[in-house]
């Protein structure tokens, strides 16, 4: 039996297919301005990629901010449950998930069966999310994917004191003007974002082992900054960005 999960996030749309506890394939595209089309496109491209016909897929669950716009899904679930389920599917036995996506960051506490027990999410403010890092990468004229590697070359991370993304960008621009080293600024940005996210983790008393998911988990500098801040090891499994979609597919298999 094949099951599908589709996660329409604020920046990217993700699709995943699973069969017999195996990830068959995943696909990621930019969501753009039309989440309905993004849902169709990411799903159909994935089916083509893994050469599976629509009729072979038994059930589909959609999730993410655009979850309601996937009108061919059998059920809609929130990304909190999907991320918890996805992370536990990839790495069984974990007790915590830190998910940092485009506009959301969340900490999820799981019980020993992988069911979500509690969660905390950012509210009213996108500081510490993927969008925050994207804004900073733009200001520094660095590829988003490069942030992690560059930050490891820092010798003296700068301190970003503004919590607000917009003000933090101004602060970064003045640091650039002040001839601060780019690697130090980037390391400072990671520390600032990590400080925001770690509050969510401590709020719900996250327990090890903890997995990080979401697009930002691909940024090694950010993972390292979070580990330093929280004082424990953070695991990054396969498919961190597609984790929500994988979780949705797993939940579809239980329908």
């Amino acid at each position, binding site marked *: 039996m094949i099951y599908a999960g589709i996660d329409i996030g604020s920046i990217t749309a993700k699709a995943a297919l699973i069969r017999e506890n195996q990830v068959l394939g995943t696909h990621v595209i930019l969501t753009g301005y039309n989440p309905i089309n993004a849902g169709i496109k990411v799903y159909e491209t994935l089916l083509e990629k893994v050469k599976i016909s629509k009729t072979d897929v038994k059930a589909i669950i959609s999730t993410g*901010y655009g979850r309601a716009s996937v009108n061919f899904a059998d059920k809609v*679930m*929130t*990304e*909190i*449950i999907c991320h918890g389920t996805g992370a536990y599917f990839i790495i069984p036995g974990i007790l915590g998930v830190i998910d940092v996506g485009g506009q959301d960051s969340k900490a999820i506490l799981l019980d020993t069966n992988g*069911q*979500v*027990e*509690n*969660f905390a*999410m950012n*509210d*009213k403010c996108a500081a510490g999310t993927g969008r925050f890092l994207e804004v900073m990468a733009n200001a520094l004229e660095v590829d988003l994917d490069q942030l992690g590697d560059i930050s490891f070359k820092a010798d003296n991370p700068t301190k970003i004191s503004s919590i607000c993304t917009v003000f933090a960008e101004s602060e970064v621009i003045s640091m650039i003007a002040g001839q601060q080293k780019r690697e130090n600024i980037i390391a400072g940005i990671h520390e600032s974002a990590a400080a925001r996210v770690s509050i969510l983790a401590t*709020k719900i008393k996250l327990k090890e082992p903890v997995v990080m998911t979401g697009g930002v988990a691909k940024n090694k500098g950010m993972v390292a900054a979070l580990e330093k801040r929280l004082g424990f090891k953070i695991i990054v499994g396969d498919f961190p960005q597609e984790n929500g979609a994988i979780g949705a597919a797993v939940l579809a298999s239980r329908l």
Partner: protein
Amino acid sequence: MPNKLAEKRKIKSAQKMRDIMTTYYLDAMTAEQNHKQVAWITSGGPVEPLVAMDIIPIYPENHGAMIGSSKMGEDLCVKAEDMGYSSDLCSYARADISCSVVKGGPIGGLPKPDMLICCNNICGTVLKWYEIQARFYHVPLFILDTPICHTEYSPEIAKYVRAQIDEYIAFLEMVTQRKFDYDKMAQVGRLALEGQLLWQKVLNTTAHKPSPMSAFDAFFFLALIVTLRGTQIAIDFYKELIEEMEQRIKEGISIIPNEKYRLLWDNLPVWYRLKWLSNKFADHNACLVADTYTSAWCSAIKYIDENNFLDSIAEAYTRIYLNIGVDQMADQVLDMIKYYDADGFVMHSNRSCKPYSFGQMDIMEIVREKADIPVLMIEADMVDPRNFSQSQIETRSNAFMEIIKQRGS
């Protein structure tokens, strides 16, 4: 057919309640022509001496709720910010202050007060808010200071508050130029207590499964115990409402179609989103059966002695929900979870109401640990819709319900 069912679910007493409230506001609006005086009073203030003196009590906070429900909060809050008030100030205060100037809102502003009665048992903001209004309207202000009872009602607090009750009466005699009628006071005191006991009974009906009404209805029906406490009108109305609820229970009429989950609400309502929130939870077959807010108007009944009313209200008004320690608040919440058999606890972290929102993190922890039920915290504001993020709240409440369902399965 579905329409007929929806019609059956509607609470019939609602219309009567609207009529009573309309009459109440009309009486207040025409007070001057009828040679009556109007006092503005904080929601937790002792209103009974006013009723005994035949002074019409008006509640800016009830007005704030009306402004919020009619979705007129944003304009009035912005107006207050234009006047120089911070957006961090309570939205009831902002709406009231600007409404006094522009005469806006659903009823074109409140009738001018002859005096202001401010009791700080609900918050500290009211002190400055009422001072501002006293200056604006050039009217005398009485402040009743009730120290927070973190653990107990000490003899010092008792003496201090009791002395102020006498000062309060002296203030009323001075402003009205009339003698205080202690016999009338005893009579009003009895009515006030009876009203609160009946209100408690109304709220208790929701312990029945399925619940005949929800906390969203309680938010509405609350207006009488706030504004007309100490009058026969409130008593008669709540008796009728209890009858209707008992009849609904008998006939098995529930407020939401398929009640499966029962939730407890904390903090003030999000007035401009009552229906939206109610529908959101009803979509999951969840009913908000009770809340900490509406029960605040009967939570101190045990301290009231109708034969020794003035002495006992000093304690009753000091020990209300917002004026006690976090541990005691948590105990009340735990009692409610048990009594109403709640499957989850929804906490509104209210940008406006600091004393209500302060301590919520601790209460959340205590509830999780002792009651072992999921707790949801949503960030919003009671009147200012600019602090309400729909998609964020939608995701959180859906995830919360998914957790409750997973636990149940």
